[in-house]
């Protein structure tokens, strides 16, 4: 197959698992003999050139902290239009790239920042089959023209854009459908994966009776870092003090170090800063449990799976995307997303109320067998091949596509201006 991949970021420029996953699948496709061209955004830092990776699309980086600090509603509204709705210049680049590559299928990842609706509509207009890999509620984000989802646009999105969706969990699919995007008939569920070989020969956990808990990801309340810190406080207060919690990730929100200090947990909980994915992978085998008290909107989460591949048993929120895939008491421990819930789960481990070694070993085997990319990849390849071989829709002209993009862009700005003036 000749595949064109569309993604806002592409490693080494990345935010998290979504982009890393994209690169992993691209490499798997290439290893399998497929021709893959990546069309992605201008990198946010100088990035070395690499073959068949075209960093040509203009990225409207709405997550950039400096730009987020700008308080002008008008500027934000304009950036939302560019990021989610339409950037005609990116449509032009896409048209040119499609002309050069003429792919069998377009494989769309996260397009927030690129004017994703316009790009997807262009792919559809030009008659190329496409598959979108959904690891977050991207369709909803794309239709948030500023600053909320337009239900009419959501309905039109689903009706006009007739591709396939690979969703990492039912949680994320349900969320997208509930937001007004009836994409379920076009969607299939394919879980996230690990690529590391793991530590299958690991035999030791809780050395000297000490429970080593790790958490990695963004340091935020959405990810439940506050829940984890409070759970540590409860454990300590109950006399279960032989544990430590290391939290890795970006973020400088003072509430978390303050909470640690306030609860007198400096000896137990440490904020360890950002580590690369490979550094984390090396460290996971030195930990016993991966705490994942994330919110219920969490689509999946790569990190707990990666940790489990190294025998680090996930203790996860009972309701979240990953919870659909792991079985409580078999290959993970599920807890209510409260300090009490997580403290109880850790307490059970420390008091040997669960067969921890057995769970960790079985979980590790499950991940390496079921959730390894080598096991997931055939499903992805099949979905791409099915799309590539499906009957093509009539192709509109590139000239019309670009003219429509220019029209949409100018109309969007005019409408934003009117709505702000009203």
């Amino acid at each position, binding site marked *: 197959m000749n595949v064109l991949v569309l993604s806002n970021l592409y490693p080494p420029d990345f935010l998290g698992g979504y982009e890393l996953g994209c690169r992993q699948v691209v490499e798997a496709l290439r290893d399998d003999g497929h021709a893959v061209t990546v069309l992605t955004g201008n990198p946010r830092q100088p990035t070395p050139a690499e073959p068949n990776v075209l960093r040509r699309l203009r990225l409207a980086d709405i997550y950039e902290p400096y730009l987020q600090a700008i308080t002008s509603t008008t500027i934000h509204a304009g950036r939302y239009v560019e990021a989610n709705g339409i950037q005609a210049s990116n449509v032009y680049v896409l048209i040119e790239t499609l002309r050069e590559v003429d792919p069998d299928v377009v494989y769309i990842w996260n397009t927030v920042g690129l004017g994703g609706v316009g790009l997807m509509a262009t792919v559809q207009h030009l008659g190329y089959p496409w598959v979108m890999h959904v690891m977050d509620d991207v369709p909803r984000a794309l239709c948030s023209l500023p600053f909320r989802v337009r239900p009419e646009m959501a309905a039109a999105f689903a009706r006009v854009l007739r591709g396939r969706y690979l969703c990492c969990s039912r949680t994320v699919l349900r969320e997208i459908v509930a937001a007004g995007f009836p994409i379920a008939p076009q969607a299939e569920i394919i879980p996230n994966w690990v690529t590391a070989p793991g530590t299958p020969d690991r035999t030791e956990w809780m050395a000297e009776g000490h429970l080593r808990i790790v958490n990695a990801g963004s340091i935020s309340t959405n990810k439940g870092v506050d829940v984890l810190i409070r759970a540590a406080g409860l454990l300590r207060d109950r006399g279960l003090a032989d544990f430590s919690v290391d939290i890795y990730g970006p973020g400088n929100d003072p509430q978390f170090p303050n909470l640690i200090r306030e609860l007198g947990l400096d000896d137990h909980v440490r904020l360890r800063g950002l580590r690369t994915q490979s550094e984390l992978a090396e460290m996971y085998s030195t930990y016993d449990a991966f705490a994942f008290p994330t919110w219920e909107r969490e689509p999946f989460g790569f990190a707990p799976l990666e940790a489990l591949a190294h025998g680090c048993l996930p203790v996860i929120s009972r309701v979240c995307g990953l919870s659909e895939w792991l079985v409580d008491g078999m290959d993970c421990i599920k807890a209510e997303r409260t300090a009490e819930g997580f403290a109880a789960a850790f307490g059970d481990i420390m008091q040997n109320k669960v067969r921890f070694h057995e769970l960790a070993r079985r979980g590790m085997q499950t991940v390496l067998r079921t959730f390894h990319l080598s096991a997931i990849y055939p499903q992805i390849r099949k979905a791409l091949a099915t799309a590539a071989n499906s009957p093509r829709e*009539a192709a509109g002209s590139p000239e019309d596509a670009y003219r429509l993009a220019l029209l949409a862009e100018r*109309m969007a700005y*005019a409408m934003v201006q009117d709505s702000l003036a*009203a």
Partner: protein
Amino acid sequence: MPTVAYLTPLYFDDKSCVGGGERYPQNLALGVALASRGRYKIEILSHGPEALRKELHPNVTLRVMPTDPPRHVLDAVSWECLDAIGSADLLHVHQAYTRSSEAGYLTAKLHRIPICVTDHGGAGSKVGMGLNVVDLVDRFVCQSDFAARSLKTTAETVLIKGGVDGDLFRPPVERPTRDRVLFVGRFLPHKGIDRLIKALPSGLPLTCCGRPYDADYFRALQKLAEGKSVEFVTDATDERIRDYYSRAWANVLPSVYRDYYGVTHMQPELMGFTLLEGMACGTPVICSRVGGMPEFVRHGETGYVYDELEELTQHLKAVSSDSVLVERMGRAARRAVDQEYDLKVCGSKLVAVYDELLAESAAVGRAAA
């Protein structure tokens, strides 16, 4: 049954606008419904402050989509358009250059729905004009040669002249005495009503019937009319207008390229809809040689076309003093409507256009599959 969405920024009602450009889509919709004998369903989509949906005729509905007041009266656009147009099989846009029409082009193209456009000369948003968006159109339906010549597009053009409701506007069973000159239309400077008042022969009564959409101009007209027998009627119903047509020696449309204030209008009249209404009522018509109007008036047979105001004065004297001439011209005018300009005649031509567009669209889909 295929649904044709008629997208028009304003609709024919006092809550929106009472003008030919608004009555015309409504008449075409009726014409298509009648001529196709129920093969097509028409949904007229327009905008206003309050939502409204009502059946105007079997298979013809009006749907008003709520919007905030736009900056320009023709630039209202509702998010509901996405669904309303996306659910249709064909889009017929009325007014080529408005934000409403731009939204229509975009939505229809994304949904792969064929687009047909009739321009009525109104202009709101400049975005589409700068991008030649009319080249996205599959067919232009023009109401006159003049309208067709005014277009700057590579799109295919079809000429369908007329669209008057010959059942609503018809000669009376017993014609009352003809006793006046008549103007019917919006009181706007490009209509040239000031010129008609100026040319009006002494002693001849004139009834000006229409909505005063320009208060300054209306005041100017009232001042010009002082000392003359001029009546302004601003709230007439269709029934009353029909009565005025029946009582008139002639229905005059004196539109101008350069108006009372010196402002130039490139397309003052693409057709002159009230001319056709008068003709349908068996009343002669007189028009200036402006826009598309002369194409509808057979000089000396159904009425007169004039260049100079003196000619208008002479024609008004002629019709007011020769009842035989008036009746003969009136009958010829009605015949012309029956044969060429009635909405059923136009509807049948338009059905052929829609059939062709839908067949083309289906063929493209089949070829791709």
